[in-house]
């Protein structure tokens, strides 16, 4: 008996007992649907996270951030000059493999205005020209910042697309226009590319559009009036030796700070690691719920198969009498169980896909329907079919043809 005719046989058995088969399949379907949906959520999160990580510098980006001085160095805190331009210069000078370095100054509340319009929710940063390649920004109009801008403390600004959108008309040329930053006039010299990666109706990269960059010294002197740097951003070329690069940077910074460990070097690898563990946690919870539902489905299938075999003892006897081997009977019932489970799996995938479609149209939930989720869901259903069909199929294959034919 071929596998295909076995499936045909299974389908006709299912059709002959529609209600009980459907109820059994429903359990499997729910299990598979929950696997597909939970996988979809995790994949969606991971996908979005990967894109935003790549677009904000990727693994090549290393950050030097301030941290609280350790307790045993409290008394030395005053001797450290703190994070400053000096650190950036030293890193560039002493750390091998570093291509771009920029300090980053962040204005707490910088208001951008043009005429009567105000740009809301914009991050205004000061940095040296390196800051754009580190954060992977591209200029589409005008020019990037240059060293001379900072040196002369020129009042020039490079803006993101969200700023242009809020302050100017659509399709209006912005380069050369003057806008007010906290009342101080700045000339727009460059416009950044518009970044978009849709995830449902949500743009994952919207943050990259809500920015404006000023020359480092212009920001420091004219906007903030202080020299403290928020953090230093570094780009390295060789991601295979990220850890060595991070250590070198840490050493240089600690040296510059006279041994006071008030700064810490962070790599995006740490984020990857913490994300991976989060992802595993989500997967585990999702798979756990799915596994329970599939277990219930599997028990249902086993129960159904045992009942079905009980009703078909004479059929089994007849099949054996006309030449079926024990293995033929075993396969017949195993394939029947797998067919049942696979149908349940398909229903589950369809239901899962439907739920994901609906959720994607909502703002808050953004799961993805991924091939891997479908494959995992479907494989699970086949596995459940095989496992739950095994025992009934063995029982059926062991029936003695004489006893089976006599069975009333």
């Amino acid at each position, binding site marked *: *008996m*071929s596998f295909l*005719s076995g499936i045909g046989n299974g389908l*006709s*058995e299912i059709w*002959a007992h529609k209600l009980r088969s459907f109820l059994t399949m429903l359990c499997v379907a729910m299990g598979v649907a929950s696997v597909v949906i939970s996988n979809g959520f995790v994949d969606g999160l991971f996908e979005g996270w990967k894109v935003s990580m790549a677009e904000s510098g990727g693994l090549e980006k290393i950050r030097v951030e301030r941290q609280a001085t350790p307790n045993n160095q409290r008394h030395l805190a005053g001797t450290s000059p703190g994070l400053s331009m000096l650190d950036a210069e030293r890193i560039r000078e002493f750390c091998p493999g570093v291509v771009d370095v920029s300090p980053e100054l962040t204005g707490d509340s910088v208001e951008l205005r043009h005429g009567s319009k105000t740009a809301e929710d914009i991050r205004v940063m000061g940095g040296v020209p390196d800051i754009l390649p580190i954060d992977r920004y591209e200029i589409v109009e005008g020019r990037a910042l240059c060293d001379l801008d900072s040196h002369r403390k020129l009042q020039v600004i490079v803006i993101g697309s969200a700023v242009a959108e809020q302050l100017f008309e659509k399709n209006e040329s912005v380069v050369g226009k003057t806008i007010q930053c906290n009342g101080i006039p700045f000339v727009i010299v460059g416009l950044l590319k518009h970044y978009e990666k849709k995830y449902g109706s949500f743009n994952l990269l919207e943050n990259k559009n809500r920015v404006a960059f000023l020359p480092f010294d212009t920001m420091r002197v004219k906007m903030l009036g202080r020299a403290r740097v928020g953090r230093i951003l570094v780009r390295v070329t060789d991601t295979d030796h990220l850890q060595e690069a991070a250590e070198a940077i840490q050493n240089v910074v600690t040296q510059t700070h006279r041994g006071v460990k008030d700064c810490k070097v962070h790599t995006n690898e740490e984020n990857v690691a913490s994300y991976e563990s989060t992802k595993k946690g989500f997967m585990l919870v999702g798979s756990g719920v799915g596994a329970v539902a599939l277990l219930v489905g599997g028990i249902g299938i086993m129960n159904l198969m045992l009942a079905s075999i009980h009703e078909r003892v*004479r*059929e089994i*006897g*007849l*099949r*054996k*009498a*006309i*030449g*079926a*081997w*024990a293995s*033929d009977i075993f396969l017949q019932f195993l394939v029947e169980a797998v067919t049942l489970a696979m149908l349940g799996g398909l229903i589950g995938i369809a239901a899962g896909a439907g739920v994901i479609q609906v959720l994607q149209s909502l703002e808050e939930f953004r799961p993805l329907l991924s091939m891997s989720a479908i494959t995992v869901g479907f494989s699970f259903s086949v596995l459940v079919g095989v496992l739950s069909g095994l025992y009934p199929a063995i029982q059926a294959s062991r029936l003695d*043809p*004489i006893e089976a*034919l006599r069975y009333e």
Partner: protein
Amino acid sequence: MPLLRLVSITKHYSVGGTLVKALDNVDLTIDSGEFSAVIGPSGSGKSTLMHLLGFLDHPTSGEIHFDGEEVARIGSNRRAMIRSEKIGFVFQSFNLLPRLSVLQNVLLPTSYARPRIPNAEKRARQALESVGMADRAHHRPSQLSGGQRQRVAIARALINEPRLILADEPTGNLDSRSAENILSLFEELHGQGRTIILVTHDANVACHTQRQIRVLDGKIL
């Protein structure tokens, strides 16, 4: 020429710890082309003999020569192959699968044939033709009368061109007219040179055959 030869066949069962000698030192030869009946009351060993003749079971001791081979101690898969290739079964209660059409029921044995039978469907239609059921190929068994169902079952027994047709009380569930029809069908098949064994307790059925093999208390009389 002998098709089937049983030599000193014994079959013992253990039922609840007591030994039952269902067949005791039985010798029997069936010739090719013979139409015979195994008759005896229930408990005589008739059914046990049928199970051995149909390779559904194996003897406790003795030899079985079938179609030129000694086959008393072969394994269950070999027995299944002999049943598939060389034996056609007809049962008292027809044993047609209710969800399959008449044609699919007749085709069922071909799905277990090793190697596969070419033109199986054509052969099934010929078998149905030979029992006069060709026009019912797409009916369900439930749409047929008892006599018609037994004809379909006979067609199923014929499809693999068996060396031996073994019919266990084939008229037991039929009214007398249908029974007569079925018996004349067997006579017709015998006329075509087929070897047929009817197992029955009914002397009226047995008298249609050439030879009556009487079984009583595990022995052939």
